């Protein structure tokens, strides 16, 4: 797959760059939130947000490069990110009583 028809692609490049700058800035912000915390849930929120922004950034960059067949990657990220966030929540939740139980006595 080559360029878009006509010169639309060349014109489009500048606005892709604008959007990707906005996305990268937001990724930076999400990273700041993930580092600042304060609670674990804030960090999960930041990770989720970071993942979505990465998906958008990759879609934009795929078009910026003029190789839209790489959108598969963005799709994969969208799916995997969901699994990651749910896994964090699941394990964090099932861990809460565990810690209490371990404090009273070692098991196993």
């Amino acid at each position, binding site marked *: *797959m080559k360029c*878009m*028809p*006509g010169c*639309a*692609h060349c*014109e*489009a490049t500048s*606005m*892709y760059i*604008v*959007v990707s*700058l*906005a*996305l990268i*800035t*937001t990724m930076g*912000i*999400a990273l*700041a*939130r993930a580092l600042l915390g*304060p*609670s674990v*849930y*804030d960090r*999960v*929120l*930041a990770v*989720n*947000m970071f993942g*979505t*922004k990465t*998906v*958008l950034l990759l*879609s*934009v960059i795929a*078009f910026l490069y003029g190789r*839209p*067949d790489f*959108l*598969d990657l*963005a*799709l994969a990220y*969208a*799916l995997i*990110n*969901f699994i990651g*966030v*749910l896994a964090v*929540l699941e394990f*964090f*939740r099932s861990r*809460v009583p565990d810690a209490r139980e371990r404090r009273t006595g070692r098991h196993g």
Partner: protein
Amino acid sequence: MNTVLDILSWILLTLGGLAVLTGGIGALRMPDLYTRMHSASVTDSLGAILVISGIMLQAGLTLATLKLAAILLFLLLTSPTASNALATAALLAGTRPLDDEDSGDAST
């Protein structure tokens, strides 16, 4: 016709970039978890819709548009679900939303 589409996608992409950026700033500046979540999920849904439909207009009727639609669909399905799971988890773990009465205490 092409120019109209270009201008339309310009507008959508710029708005998308703005939505993502404002949401990101909100996620950084809001006082407690739930307000941050509110702000972050706005970027996830609105920003994603705007940015991806902006790119879709550029792509025209190709396989890439189909993939973009799939990405958008998955983002719209998974991101609110993750937010919901996160909010439930946080609430069950005892994180209370910030009330008017205890304003200023953002540490919980």
